């Protein structure tokens, strides 16, 4: 973190952590992927800065560096999670944008990528609006886009899970069968229960019957 603050050479994974934290979001109604990624980078940089500032304040107030660290682990965990979240959003968007697929496929994957990012923001909204990075107006863009994306993905949902290409045997599930014959499969499965090997279980004679005759 001191290297970042000094503007020293740092690895590409963490370069964005040195960005200007006073900047506001570029988000518009279109909800561009670039603006979504910047939001994640801003959140990670800010939470890391918050954690570092907390440690420095504790050190200034007389605690040792280790004590200050130990008293800041919740803030540090928030920062680390935000960093990982950013890493995933960045990787997802990078792979989708580089993918050699036709336009209709790319559109579907881009919608998924945006949904992943927007859902990540909405589920952690406090961390994105605490410093006023998003305005209330921009948050409403995100909420509207979320609903639009759910509708957009809906017709492709089954095809998107088919694309994982798991044979039925691998899933080992009556509900997830490729042919959708869920209810006959549940019936067949139930018949495997050892309870069904006898019409009347021994336990009936041992426990239920005596209780009925007492």
């Amino acid at each position, binding site marked *: *973190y001191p*290297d970042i603050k000094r503007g020293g050479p*740092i690895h590409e994974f*963490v370069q964005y952590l040195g960005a200007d934290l006073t900047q506001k979001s570029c988000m518009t109604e279109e909800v561009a992927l670039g603006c979504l990624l910047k939001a994640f980078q801003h959140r990670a940089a800010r939470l890391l800065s918050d*954690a*570092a500032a907390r*440690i420095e304040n504790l050190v200034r107030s007389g605690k040792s560096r280790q004590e200050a660290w130990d008293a800041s682990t919740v803030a*540090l*965990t928030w*920062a*680390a*999670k935000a*960093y*990982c979240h950013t*890493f*995933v959003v960045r*990787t*997802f968007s990078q*792979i*989708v944008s580089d993918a050699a*697929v*036709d336009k*209709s*496929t790319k*559109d*579907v*994957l881009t919608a*998924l*990528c945006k949904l*992943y990012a927007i*859902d990540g923001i909405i589920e952690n909204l406090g961390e994105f609006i605490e410093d006023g990075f998003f305005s209330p107006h921009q948050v409403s863009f995100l909420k509207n886009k979320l609903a639009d994306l*759910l509708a957009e*993905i*809906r*017709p*492709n*949902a*089954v095809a*998107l*899970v*088919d*694309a*994982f*290409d798991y*044979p039925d*045997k691998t*899933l*080992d*599930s*009556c*509900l*997830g*069968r490729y042919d*959708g*014959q*869920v209810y006959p*499969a*549940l019936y067949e*499965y139930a018949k*495997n229960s050892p309870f069904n090997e006898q019409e009347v279980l021994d336990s009936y004679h041992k426990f239920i019957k005596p209780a009925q005759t007492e």
Partner: protein
Amino acid sequence: MNPDLAQERRRATFDPEQVTSLLYRGPENVRKRRYLQNAAIQDQVLRGSKPWAFQSRVEQYETALQMFIYMMKKLDEMGVTDPLERMYYQEAGAPHYYNPMALHTGMFIPSIEKQGTKEQKERWLPMARSLQLIGTYAQTEMGHGTFIRGLETTASYDPSNQEFVLNSPTVTSMKFWPGGLGKTSNCCLVMAQLITQGKKRGIHLFFVQIRDLKTHRHMPGVESGDIGPKFGFNSNDNGYLKLSNVRIPRENMLMRYSKVLEDGTYVPPTNQRIGYGTMVFVRAHIVTNSARGLSKACVIAIRYSAVRRQTEVSPGGPEAQIIDYQTQQYKLFPLLATAYAMYFTGRYAEDYYEQIASEIEAGNLESLNQLHAVCAGLKAFSTWACTAGIETCRLCCGGHGYSHASGIPKLYTYYTPGCTYEGENNVMMLQVARFLMKI
């Protein structure tokens, strides 16, 4: 074919085959994957057993053992050596049975390959590959997990006969949890505090034979056994191990990076973290593994949501497919997106691991800390997302999701250990934080 699912497939606006190719790195890999999966599915030997959930624990263990030994030999016969391709075959042959030899192939052999000397590799690897040696990786202790430096097991060097003496000095120091340690393995790599010339030298790996290679009975000073039933992984004999003055020759310490000379002189490694290589390797692959778990749950929940109908939308009308309810979409589609995100990130983590591992092999350790932090963070982030996501998928299947017939409880118990094995997730996140602060 259920008409609703058939209709869903007709209305898709893209070609799923292109996405499959993207996920599995090209059509050639997809073809190989399907070939291997079909070979396993068609194999009569792998068909016979009764459904998993109706088996006792011993039956689950024996079924898994029989299937995985059969599959290992079959894969060797077919000349399949790539670990991913082997996994595809095994995944289709014995779905969600945890392989009692998973640590043998996944950690024991790779650790010797990466941390053994040339002589050690020549001595142990051929025996390990032919199952003369069946090994595991005994790191975790009953009272000590992620904080490896806190391990209590000791390996004291005795220069008079050039042997290490291994001990579990307390109950908390007993090795506890390693997969396959209880009944399957006859040897293991033990992580222990090295003591030589009266000084503690930090934790190191030692090859310890725990059972006789002919009778499978315990070696002198060794006590081990199964730790009992768990939340999942019950086809695996996770075990405990107590060592009482177990003597092993000096050559049994893995000495590629650090060494103990005949007189007891300690030669330290160039980087203290080099010994964590196996763990980093496993963490890099946990990300894709998490994606696999979450994506399977999504397949089940989304297909079922297209088949299941519930409640008339307008009075007297037909019951709606539950996938048409926005609340169901809001629960499932972000998880579907997460599964894709994790697949792609896992691919990145594996490539990054391979890249840095090559640099390490060439003696360049500059990026080791970076790799360590990235893999730790992504491991935690992906396993949390996977576990929480599978639970949501279960809820999306209503009452049937609670039945083992849905396949979801087994997925949950199979994947959720990822949150605690190979490093508890909060600890992982603090390692990321330390990396960020240091860099």
